[in-house]
């Protein structure tokens, strides 16, 4: 945490802003390199240089002492031998070389494959012991080769970004001849094609290297594996040693594998970008004129539109006959008052079900039939009453047989009997007479006691 705070506090001394010493170091470095200035320079040299910088950038001249104070921390030192003289520190030189390196990546023009093969290759019999392996690929020794590859990839990336800018620029130019345009594109694009091939080759050599390295790791393992079960103290020591060697070899392998994973990710990105540009290029071949033409047309339409617009306090206004366009816009809103009950009374919606005519007729018929039945029963009950009145007695079997015959429905006869018995049982003048003799009712399988209903 403290270290980080220190970085913040000393940031301006570490990376001085351009007019606070930043440009000064660059110009001093260049002057020394071009022999315009001795390695050891005076405060006047510094003052003059500061003046030159300010004039050429149109800035006020800063106070030399203040700037010197900033730079004296890391970038400029007092000469011990020659008082009043100053020199640029190694750090200052390194910083400028580092910055130049970013701009002119030295790996830009080298094939990636070569860098790979130089840094990551195993020749036969080169590695016999674990020390050989560590010296060649151990974490400390491999930092350099790793950096070469990383720098290389960065260079490649920068190059592609520049390539893209170039392609966009060609598309934008007002050049109308298709042949010229396509030619320009092809030149800009050739670089992409070469890079794609280089990357494919590099991946192949990288894979081969990992395979070779793995064989070596396996060798250490087989040494361990072939050891017979230890018995003596010496044998135990040998086992521990072989174990440690295998562990180290494995660690080296994993470290490099991990590094290659990051390389893979970067290469995938770069390849993806190349493919994308390649797709666009083939598309452009087909319809280049139309596309470039349309782009110019859109620009002109924008210009016409702007020419026909004027400022309003609340926005922009087009001249009257500038056509505004419609697009579809219908907001469908679904409301689900799931979580809230606002106590809104819900209207009672009556759902009208259409009449089922068939069902209605059937039910109607049933009612009529039932009505009719009741009427028939009533008629028979009254008829029976009259018979009793007129003739003084009535044989129940005769009555039931008559009804069954006429109505073709025994249940009516049965119900009439029931009704009749109900009525006469409250009438004291009428008597029901049973005989314990079973009589069968015709055309049914029913028998009743012989029953007579008679007046007293």
């Amino acid at each position: 945490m403290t270290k980080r705070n220190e970085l913040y506090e000393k940031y301006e001394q570490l990376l001085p802003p351009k007019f606070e010493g930043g440009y000064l170091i660059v110009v001093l470095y260049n002057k020394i390199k071009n022999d315009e200035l001795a390695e050891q320079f005076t405060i006047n040299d510094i003052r003059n240089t500061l003046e030159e910088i300010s004039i050429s950038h149109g800035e006020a001249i800063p106070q030399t002492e203040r700037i010197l104070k900033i730079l004296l921390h890391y970038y400029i030192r007092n000469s011990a031998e020659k008082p009043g003289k100053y020199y640029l520190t190694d750090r200052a030189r390194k910083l400028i070389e580092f910055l130049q390196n970013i701009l002119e990546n030295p790996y830009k023009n080298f094939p990636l494959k070569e860098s790979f093969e130089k840094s990551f290759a195993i020749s036969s019999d080169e590695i016999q012991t674990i020390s050989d392996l560590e010296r060649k690929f151990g974490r400390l020794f491999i930092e350099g080769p790793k950096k070469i590859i990383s720098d290389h990839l960065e260079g490649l990336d920068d190059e592609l970004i520049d390539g893209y800018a170039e392609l966009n620029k060609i598309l934008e130019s007002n050049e109308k001849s298709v042949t010229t345009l396509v030619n320009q594109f092809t030149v800009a694009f050739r670089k992409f094609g070469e890079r794609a091939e280089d990357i494919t080759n590099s991946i192949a050599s990288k894979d081969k290297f990992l395979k070779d390295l793995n064989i070596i790791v396996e060798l250490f393992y087989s040494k361990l594996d072939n050891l017979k079960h230890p018995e003596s103290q010496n044998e135990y020591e040998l086992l521990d040693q072989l174990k440690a060697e295998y562990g180290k070899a494995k660690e080296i392998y994993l470290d490099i594998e991990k590094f290659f994973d990051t390389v893979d990710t970067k290469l995938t990105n770069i390849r993806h970008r190349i493919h994308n540009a390649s797709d666009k290029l083939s598309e452009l071949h087909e319809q280049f004129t139309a596309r470039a033409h349309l782009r110019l047309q859109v620009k002109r339409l924008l210009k016409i539109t702007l020419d026909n617009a004027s400022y309003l306090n609340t926005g922009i206004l087009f001249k009257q006959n500038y056509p505004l366009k419609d697009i579809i816009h219908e907001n469908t809103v679904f409301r689900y008052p799931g979580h809230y009950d606002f106590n809104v009374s819900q209207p009672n919606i009556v759902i009208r079900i259409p009449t089922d005519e068939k069902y209605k007729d059937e039910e109607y018929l049933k009612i009529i039939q039932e009505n009719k039945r009741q009427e028939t029963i009533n008629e028979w009950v009254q008829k029976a009453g009259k018979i009793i009145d007129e003739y003084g007695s009535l044989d129940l079997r005769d009555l039931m047989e008559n009804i069954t015959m006429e109505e073709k429905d025994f249940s009516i006869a049965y119900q009439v009997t029931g009704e009749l018995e109900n009525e006469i049982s409250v009438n004291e003048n009428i008597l029901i007479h049973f005989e314990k003799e079973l009589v069968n009712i015709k055309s049914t399988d029913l028998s009743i006691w012989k029953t007579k209903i008679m007046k007293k």
Partner: protein
Amino acid sequence: MENQDNEKINFDFLSEEDVQKSFADLHSCLLSGKHICIDDYTFFSLLEKYERDWKFFYRSLYAMNLVGNVFDRHTYFYLDFFDSDKGKLGEQSRSHQLTEIQTITGLVLLDIYYHRYFDEKKVVNWADIQNQIKDGEYHEQYKKLLFGVLRDSYTEQEWLIVEKRFRNTINSFNRFGWVSIMPEQGKDLVFEIKPAIYRMSKLYEVELSDLENFATRLTNNN
């Protein structure tokens, strides 16, 4: 021949499970004017799978045209009126007329799209737009239209108003599916221009086909 084709198309696709699952959302999305590209994967794949059926559905029931357009190798779908007929959504309340600022912004974004044609993603932020206004090719016109006066610099307050207006426009374009606002950028407005911005040149197709005539007509009538 056409009739025969039509006979095969019907509304049966509406009873497919995948259609039923997303119908309501997709339908209201299209009606709201959104342009659907592959980023809305579920909707996009449904439209692609049953394209002929959807087209039939919207033509028969809404008298509208479901368009599948390709620009810069990307397809996007949207609902449009048939020529000279606004279909069943023809009422004022059911269509949206692009405002002046939306029209200008749309054309500017289309121009930027072409400008960055070779970039894989056309990502733009407020600072890019601000630069266009300050130093772009049409900076004088932009300044006059947005601030009302031509000056070398404008106050923070003035910029705030312009930024707010622009932000609103981009929000509406986000709803149309013409841009996609990147949410992880916090307070700063960062968005990607989608290929569907090409709809702007579809809307002005007639004018673009004969710009000379269009320009003359505007000058004469004013």
